C-alpha cells in the first residue's frame, strides 16, 4: 500500500507499543506523527497503566513528534455533545478525538482500543482508522519484536467489522 502523506494522530497505546517494539524512529521518520498533550502525559512513567513500563523520554518524544496539541474545554465539550460514547474513553483518547474532529485536513488516526475505534465508526471516520502494523509496513519497517495483536492489520479489519455490526444493531 502507498504511504499516507497526511498527519498521523496517535494515542498513548500506540506510543507505548512503538517504544516496546523499538519502532518509534521508523514511525516518526516516515510520517508526520501528532498527538495531544494528555496522550503525551499518559506515556510517562507511573501513568502508563502497565506493570512493565517503557522509559519514554519526554524530550525525545517532543522532538520527534510533528505536533503535540492542547485541547480546550470548549473542544472537549463540543465533542462530548456530538457523541455520547466519547464519555467512555480514556482521557487521552477523548482528547485525541476532540482534536481530530475539528481538523479539516486528511488525518488518519492510529489507536487500537475498541471503544476508540467504535467512536471512529460512529463519527463516520472508519476509513481513517489505521493499524500500527500497516503504518510501519508502508514505510518498510518490520519490528523484530512481535506487535501485540491489537496493533495488527488483521485484527483491526476483523474488529472494525465486528464493531460496525454492533453499531448497526443499535444500543
Amino acid at each position: 500500500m502507498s504511504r499516507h502523506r497526511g498527519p498521523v494522530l496517535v494515542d498513548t497505546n500506540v506510543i507505548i507499543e512503538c517504544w516496546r517494539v523499538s519502532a518509534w524512529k521508523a514511525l516518526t521518520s516516515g510520517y508526520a506523527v501528532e498527538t495531544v498533550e494528555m496522550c503525551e502525559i499518559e506515556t510517562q512513567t507511573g501513568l502508563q497503566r502497565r506493570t512493565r513500563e517503557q522509559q519514554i523520554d519526554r524530550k525525545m518524544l517532543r522532538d520527534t513528534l510533528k505536533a503535540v496539541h492542547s485541547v480546550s474545554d470548549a473542544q472537549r465539550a463540543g465533542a462530548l455533545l456530538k457523541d455520547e460514547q466519547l464519555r467512555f474513553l480514556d482521557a487521552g483518547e477523548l482528547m485525541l478525538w476532540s482534536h481530530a474532529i475539528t481538523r479539516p485536513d486528511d488525518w488518519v488516526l492510529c489507536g487500537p482500543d475498541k471503544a476508540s475505534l467504535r467512536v471512529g465508526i460512529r463519527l463516520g471516520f472508519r476509513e481513517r482508522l489505521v493499524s500500527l502494523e500497516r503504518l510501519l509496513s508502508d514505510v518498510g519497517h518490520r519490528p523484530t519484536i512481535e506487535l501485540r495483536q491489537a496493533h495488527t492489520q488483521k485484527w483491526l479489519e476483523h474488529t472494525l467489522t465486528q464493531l460496525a455490526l454492533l453499531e448497526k444493531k443499535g444500543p
Partner: protein
Amino acid sequence: MTAATIGIRIRALREKQGFSQEDLAQRFGFKDRQTLSAIETGDRRVTAEELVRAVEVFGVQLDYFTDPFLLVGEGRFSWRQSGLVGRALADYEVDAGRFIAAFRTLAPQIGRDAPLLRRTLALTSQSSFDNAAAAGERFALEFKLGEIPATTLADTMERELGILVLMVDAINGISGAACRLPELDVVLINRRESPGRRHFDLAHELFHILTWDAMPPEHVEDVAPKRRTRVEQLADNFASALLMPASALDRYGDWSGLKGDGLIKRLNAAADELRVSSSALRWRLVDLKRLDRSTAAAIREDKLRNNGRTNPEKEPLSPLFSKTFISVIARAVDEGRVAVRRVSYLLGLAIDELADLFKAHRVDAPYDL
C-alpha cells in the same frame, strides 16, 4: 450523555453552592430562569458554550458534568468501619462510587438490566431481636443456603436478589459497606478481612439492603460493639441466624455438658466448618439457649481469636470484585463500549493485571491491548 444527567448535575451543584435559579440563570447569561429550569429537568440540551460556562461558574472540571462513572447525589452508602477519619472514607467512597456506577451504566448496555423488583424484609426498628433472628433463619431456609450458608450467600444474593456483591481492597479500617442506588443494590466486602468477619459483614449488609426504607442505616457505623445502635443489633441478629441457623447447628449435637478446653475446641472446629468466627458462634449458641450465658462469658477471648489458631495460615485472597461484575466489564470492553485504559483507572489495576483478573474469574479476556 443524556441531557437529564447534565441537568441533574447542574442542579446538584447549584443547590450545593447556594445559587437560586434566578442567580444562576443570570450568570449563564439567560434572559429568564425558565431556560435554566428546562436544562435542569433535561427538557433542553446544553450547548458546548453553556457547558464551558458551567465549568467556569461552578469552578469544577468538565468531567463533573459528563462522566458516566460518577455518582452525584444518587448513591447512599453505609460503611462498616473502625477508627477511620472522614477524609479517607470520603475519598474511598468516591472511588467505590465510580466502579459501582460503571456497572450500573454498562450492564444495561450489554443487555443485563437491573432487577425490576426489590425484595424487602417485613421488619421495623420496633421488631424484636428474635424477629430478626427468625428472619435470618427463614432466609437461609427459603433460599436453600445449605449446611454452610456462608459459602452460598454471595452467589444467592447476586442470582436471586440481583444484589451485586463485590470483593474489594478497601482502605484500612473498612470492613464492608452497603450501597443503594435508585436501581441497584451493592454490598462491598473487604477481601482482606478474615473469612468469619467477611461472611458476617455480608449477612449484616444484606439486612440493611432488605430493610433500607424502613430502617435507613447510618452513613458510618462503628463495628465496636459498645456503640451499636438498635438497627445494628437487629442486623447482627439476622446475620448470626442466617449464617448459623438452628438446623445447621443440630449436627454438632449437645453443647450443654461442655466446658473448658473441650468447649473451646468444639467451638473452634464448628466455627471453621461454618466459616464464621468462634466468638459469633458462641453467642449464637447462647441465643438459642444451647449454651449457658455464664459458661460462654467465661471463655477467654484469646482462646477464640482466629478460631483458636495462634499462627493462622493466610488463605488465598478471593479475586477482586465478582464474576458478575467482571463479566459485564469484559463484555463492555469487547464490544467497544468502554476503553481498556478507562477500566484500568476505574478498577485501580494496570492493564496487564486486568488480564489476570479476567482469568481469576474464568472470564474470557477481551483482547490484548
